[in-house]
């Protein structure tokens, strides 16, 4: 592994500023790493020429003393973001060949801050999945292995390609999107940091929609500070997104003071899930201890409706998705399978273009919105969602952040949990509640399972209180001192 690919975003910024290396050298090192790790299937498009050209321009700006926040920092972009002239297909066959004539606001913000795109990353089709096994481009391989076991593991999902790429040192950071845990769960599975901001903090414009009331862009990085730097560039009000919020973006990195003595951390008993491995429970207790040692107050807090969050999510998200995905009809872009009339053409196109999980969710979503079932399912779920959000509001009257595990288990082998959709859905049991309530949350790598796989701890904060979230996460990161790395390149098949 090249020393340049082992850097953090913050470290690379310092190195570039001090002329220890050039942006071009930094980019070339990452291109070499990607080329060496194509077996991970993390990237679905490589934009190396563009990254090199951008690096040369970045070097010129650095030389001119005009470096911006992320000048010359090579990143990867989830295939869910529309990038001008570069395939943007949500890893779905139905968007085959789609190259948008526009750039998403979040990626445009990153490029305006000087960041460079190495390529587009693999993901679950339309972000529907928790193991990156629903991608039309094939599964992503987690760079981690169980000790003494060569079986390929999932990276989590849906931002599996981004998480694997960051963990394998193929990029310094990556964008992800999180609807029910799609940033945080793969971050936990891959031993990196994954952060979902408050709903409305990042623009959704140009991000291919899955569930509009839940989707948020966020960073996947190797440190909390890097996540703060990336979010700094990504966030902000966008007049093109009616749900993006007009609030100033604070200096997130500056919030990383390392001091949590004024904070109260809540531990919700309801996250103690039946059948959860003891080592996850133990790591959670360790987290509590770390916060106490850092001087924070840790208290029990109750989030009584936690167990209803997942079923609520699996009504709300498919309902919105069934409507959001209606535009994929073979008329204006993407796949078309011919038929005698438009109705037949649509039905064939969509049967052929959508994978099994996407089809399943569209059908469920259509059903719960249909006449006679709307009240029983969709309306009911939206009411429970109100109560779940109220649970958090009440909790945040007495605590500043909530600490939970990120996922109820570590990475599993590709092919496992495939038969039972609900078993797969359980991946997101701890991440979904914050998504429903629109709250900022972060997963921090905090330990290893007995067989050597990374585990994450998860913090949730008040709306728009990303500074407190980053501050607490920074302390957790320092205390956990997670330093393990996945096997070196080439060790994977």
């Amino acid at each position, binding site marked *: 592994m090249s020393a340049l690919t082992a850097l953090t975003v913050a470290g690379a910024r310092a190195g570039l500023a001090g002329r220890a290396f050039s942006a071009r050298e930094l980019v070339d090192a990452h291109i070499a790493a990607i080329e060496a790790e194509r077996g991970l299937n993390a990237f679905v498009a490589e934009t190396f020429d563009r990254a090199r050209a951008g690096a040369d321009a970045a070097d010129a700006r650095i030389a001119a003393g005009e470096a911006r926040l992320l000048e010359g920092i090579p990143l990867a972009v989830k295939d869910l973001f529309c990038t001008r002239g570069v395939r943007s297909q949500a890893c779905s066959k139905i968007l085959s060949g789609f190259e948008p004539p526009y750039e998403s606001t979040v990626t445009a913000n990153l490029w305006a801050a000087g960041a460079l795109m190495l390529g587009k990353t693999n993901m679950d089709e339309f972000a529907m999945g928790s193991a990156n096994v629903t991608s039309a481009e094939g599964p992503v391989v987690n760079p981690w292995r169980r000790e003494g076991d060569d079986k390929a593991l999932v990276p989590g999902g849906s931002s599996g390609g981004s998480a694997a790429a960051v963990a394998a040192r193929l990029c310094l950071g990556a964008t992800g999107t999180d609807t029910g845990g799609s940033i945080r769960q793969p971050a936990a599975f891959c031993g990196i940091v994954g952060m979902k901001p408050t709903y*409305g903090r990042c623009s959704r414009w140009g991000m291919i929609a899955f569930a509009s009331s839940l989707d948020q862009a966020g960073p996947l990085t190797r440190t909390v500070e890097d996540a703060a730097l990336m979010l700094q560039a990504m966030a902000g009000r966008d007049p093109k997104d009616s749900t993006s919020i007009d609030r100033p973006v604070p200096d997130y990195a500056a919030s990383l003071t390392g001091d949590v003595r004024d904070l109260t951390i809540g531990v919700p008993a309801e996250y103690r899930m039946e059948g959860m491995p003891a080592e996850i429970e133990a790591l959670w207790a360790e987290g509590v201890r770390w916060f106490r040692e850092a001087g924070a107050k840790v208290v029990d807090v109750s989030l009584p409706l936690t167990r209803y969050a997942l079923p609520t999510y699996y009504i709300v998200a498919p309902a919105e998705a*069934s409507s959001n995905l209606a535009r994929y009809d073979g008329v204006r872009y993407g796949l078309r399978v011919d038929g005698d009339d438009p109705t037949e053409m649509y039905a064939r196109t969509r049967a052929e273009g959508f994978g099994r999980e996407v089809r399943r969710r569209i059908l469920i979503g259509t059903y719960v919105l249909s006449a006679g079932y709307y009240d029983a399912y969709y309306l009911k779920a939206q009411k429970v*969602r109100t109560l779940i959000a109220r649970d958090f509001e009440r909790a945040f009257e007495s605590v500043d952040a909530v600490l939970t595990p990120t996922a109820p288990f570590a990475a599993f082998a590709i092919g496992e949990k495939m038969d039972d959709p609900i078993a797969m859905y359980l991946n997101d049991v701890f991440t979904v509640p914050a998504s429903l309530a629109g709250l900022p949350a972060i997963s921090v790598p905090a330990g290893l399972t007995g067989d050597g796989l990374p585990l994450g701890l998860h913090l949730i904060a008040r709306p728009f209180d990303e500074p407190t979230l980053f501050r607490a996460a920074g302390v957790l990161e320092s205390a956990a001192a997670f330093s393990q790395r996945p096997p070196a390149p080439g060790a994977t098949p």
Partner: protein
Amino acid sequence: MSIDRDTVVRIARLSRIAMEEDALEPMAEELNGILAWVEQLGEVDTEGVEPMTGAIAATLPQRDDAAQAGTPTDDLLANAPEADDGFFVVPRVVE
């Protein structure tokens, strides 16, 4: 409430997703599994609770009434499976 084969046919048609005859029963089973699981929401008392339709409480922003030129027609049609003289083309609609 449970989904039978005919219900799958109905929602597949509403969703415009063609389904093979032999996929209907298995799909009905899968969907029933999910529905049975989500039905635990019935345990929650939601009497008098307002539904949450968005994750943020804010007012709807509005844009000024200023028209910009449309997307260049060539760009608009660039990704279209079939286009003809400025139009998108679909199989003939049978009225």
